[in-house]
C-alpha cells in the first residue's frame, strides 16, 4: 500500500535528510519508524504528503507516485500529526464535517458523527464543543476521528502519542489495533520504543537519513527493543 523506493532528500542547505531509503507497508500492517531527531522520519511523511519534493527516488501510495500525482495518491491516505491542530472557533462537528467534505465524504448524518466519536473514545457532547476548549488528548482523538471518517486504506502518523497522558496513549494504541484489524496500512513515526514494541508489526530504525535496520515483530516480541535499537545505531555508527 505504501512503497518507498530509493527515496533521497537533500535540503537546500546541503543536509542529507533521506539517503536511498527503501521499504513498504502492507495492508493490515503497522510499520513504526524509530530514530533520533533529524533521522529523516518526518521528511518521509512530508514527501508522502507532497509537502516537499524528493531529490530522487519515489514514494507511492496505492501505486500512485506521491510527487507526480499527489492528488491521486492523497485520496488513499489520512494524516495524523504529532500535535493535531484544528480550527479553534469551530465545534468538533464543524471540524469533522469540513475535513470529511475535503475527503469527499458528503451528506454525513448525526449518527455517523456520533459513531466516530464513540469509536475514538470522545463523548458525544464533545461534538458541540469548540475546539479551543479541547485538551491535546482530545484533539489527537479527533484527529483519528477525521482519519476514520475519510476511511482511507493508508494512514500516516507523525509522533501521534507524543505528549499524551498514559491513559490516552493506551486508548490510542487500542484504536490503532482496531484500524489494523480493518486492514489499514499504518506508517507511524515515533520516539517511543516502548509503545512501538506494543503495537508495531515491523520497526524500521533510521539514522542520519538511512534506514539502518528493519525488524519484524518476532525479532523483538520477546527481546528488548531498546537494546536492538541501540545495537543497530552503534553498528550504523561503526559502518559510517
Amino acid at each position, binding site marked *: 500500500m505504501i512503497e518507498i523506493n530509493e527515496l533521497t532528500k537533500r535540503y537546500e542547505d546541503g543536509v542529507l535528510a533521506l539517503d536511498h531509503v527503501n521499504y513498504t507497508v502492507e495492508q493490515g500492517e503497522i510499520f513504526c519508524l524509530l530514530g533520533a531527531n533529524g533521522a529523516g522520519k518526518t521528511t518521509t511523511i*512530508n514527501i508522502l*504528503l507532497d509537502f*516537499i519534493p524528493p531529490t530522487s527516488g519515489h514514494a507511492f501510495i496505492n501505486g500512485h507516485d506521491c510527487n507526480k500525482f499527489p492528488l491521486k495518491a492523497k485520496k488513499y491516505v489520512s494524516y495524523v500529526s504529532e500535535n493535531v*491542530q484544528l480550527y*479553534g*472557533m*469551530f465545534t468538533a462537528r464543524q471540524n469533522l464535517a469540513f475535513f470529511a*467534505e475535503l475527503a*469527499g465524504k458528503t451528506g454525513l448524518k448525526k449518527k455517523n458523527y456520533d459513531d466516530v466519536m464513540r469509536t475514538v473514545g470522545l463523548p458525544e457532547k464533545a461534538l458541540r464543543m469548540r475546539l479551543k476548549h479541547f485538551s491535546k488528548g482530545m484533539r489527537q482523538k479527533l484527529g483519528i476521528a477525521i482519519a476514520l471518517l*475519510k476511511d482511507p486504506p493508508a494512514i500516516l502518523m507523525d509522533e501521534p502519542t507524543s505528549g499524551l497522558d498514559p491513559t490516552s496513549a493506551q486508548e490510542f494504541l487500542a484504536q490503532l489495533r482496531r484500524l489494523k484489524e480493518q486492514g489499514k496500512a499504518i506508517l507511524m513515526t515515533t520516539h517511543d520504543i516502548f509503545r512501538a514494541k506494543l503495537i508495531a508489526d515491523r520497526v524500521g530504525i533510521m539514522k542520519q537519513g538511512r534506514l539502518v535496520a528493519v525488524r519484524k515483530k518476532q525479532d523483538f516480541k520477546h527481546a528488548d527493543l531498546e537494546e536492538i535499537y541501540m545495537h543497530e545505531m552503534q553498528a550504523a555508527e561503526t559502518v559510517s
Partner: protein
Amino acid sequence: MLKTIIAREFLNNILNLRFMIGLVLCIIVTVACIMILAHDYQQEMTDYNIRVNLQDKILDNYAKANFFRLWRMIRLQKPPERFRPLIIGIPGNENLGFFDDNPLPILFPPLDFLFIVTIIMSLLAILFSHDAIAGERQSGTLRLVISNSISRTKILFGKFIGGTTSLIIPFILSLLVGALYISINPSIQWDGSAWAELALLTAASITFITLFYLLGLMVSTFSRYSTTSILNCLFLWILLVLVIPNVCPYISAQLYRIPSIKETERKNREIEIHSIEVARELMKESVKKFKSSYGKLFSEFESMEFGGIGTRFVLERDAGPEHEKAAQQRAEADPEFKAMMDAFREEGKKAQKELIRVREESDMLDKDLETKAAAQTKLAKNLACISPFANFVYVARGLTGTGLRSLDYFEQTKDEYENQLRPYLSKKIDDAREKNPALEEESLLDVSDRPRFAFKEEALKEKLNEILPYWGILVLFNVVFFVAAFAGFIIYDVR
C-alpha cells in the same frame, strides 16, 4: 470541494472577533457619515436656492440697460453635487471662503464614503487576509488541509472568495442602511441615474476592497509568520495609499517644470506697464506731428480734450462727455476739422493696436502657464496610477461628479449657457433702444424671459468613458496580486 473551502473561510471569518469589529465599525461610521453629510447637503442646497432666488429677484426687478453691468450681475453657481451625502466634492472658487469658517477639512481628511473605502475598508481587508496562509501554517491546520486530495489553486481561490465575501457583507450592509436613509430623506431627490451610479460605485469599491484582500493574501503566501505578514502588508499599504499619491505631484513638478504663478503675474504687470508706455509715446508723437501740421486748428481740438480720442494715453484721464459732444459738433460743421479729427482717430487706433499687440504677449504667458500647469497635472495624475488608491479616487469621483472633471464640466455648461445669454442680452438692449432711442444705461430693463441656467449632471455614458481605464487598472491590480499569490502559494512550504 471549492464550496467547502469557501464556506469554511467564510464561517471562520464571521466567527472571528475582527468580523464583529468590522461590522460594527462599518455600520456606525457609514451611517453616521451619511447622516452628517446629508444634513450638510441639505444646508448647502438651501443656501444655493437662496442665492439663485435672490439673483433672479434682483435681475427681475433691477436689471439695467447696460450690457456689461447686466453681465456682471449674472453669477452662475454650481449646485451641491447630488452625491454630497456620500462624498465631499472639491470646492469651486466661490466656496473657497469656506476655509475661513472651518479650517479642519484642510488639516484632516474629511470623513466620507471615500475615506471609509480607501482607509477603513482597505485596512480591514488586510486585517482579514494577512494570516490566511501564514497564520494557518503557524497553527498547523494548513498541513492537515493539504494532506487531503485538494489542489492548492482551489484552496487559494476558496480562501479568496470566502474571505472577500465575509469582508464585503459588513460593507454592503452598512451601505444598504445608508441607501435606505437617502431614499427616505425628502431633501435628497435621486433619480434612476444616481442610483445606477451608486450601484457602479459599490462595484468599484468592491474591486478596490478585493484588491487589498489579495494584497494581504499575496504577502501571506510569501511570509512564514503572520506578524511578518501584517508588517509587510502595512508597509505596502502606506506606500500605495499614502506615499505614492502624495509624492507624484512632486515628481511631476520636478520632471515638468513650469514658471510660478507669482513670476508670471510679475511679468504680466511689466508687460502691462510697458504696453501703456508704448501707446503713450505713440500718441505724444502724434500730438507733436499734428500740432506742426494743423497749428491753430489742432490747438482748438486740443482744448476740446481731443474729443475723447486717445485721452487715456495723452492726458492720462478720460475726457468728459461735453468735450466729445463739442468736438463732434465742430467736426460736423467744419470738413477740415473733421478730416483732422478722423486722421487723429486713426493715430489713436494705431496706438490702441500696439497696446493690444503687446497685451497679447501677456495673454500668451497666461495661456502658456495654463497649458503647462495642465500638462503637469496630467503627468502627476498618470504617475499616481501606479497606486490603486489614486485609481479608485479617479473612478469614484468621476462617477459621482465630485472630482476635477465635474468642475470642468460645470465650466463647459456655464459657457454653453453664456453663449445663449450673450445674444439674448444684446438683442434685448438693442430692441429696447429701438423702441426708445432716449433709453439711458441707468434705465430698467425687463429680462424676465431670459434663458434660465439649469445645471444637469454629466451623462453616465460620458462618465463611464472617463473612468473605465482607471477601473481597468484596478482590475489589473487584482489579477496581478492573485497571480503573485498563486505563484507564492504553489511553492509555499507548509511545514
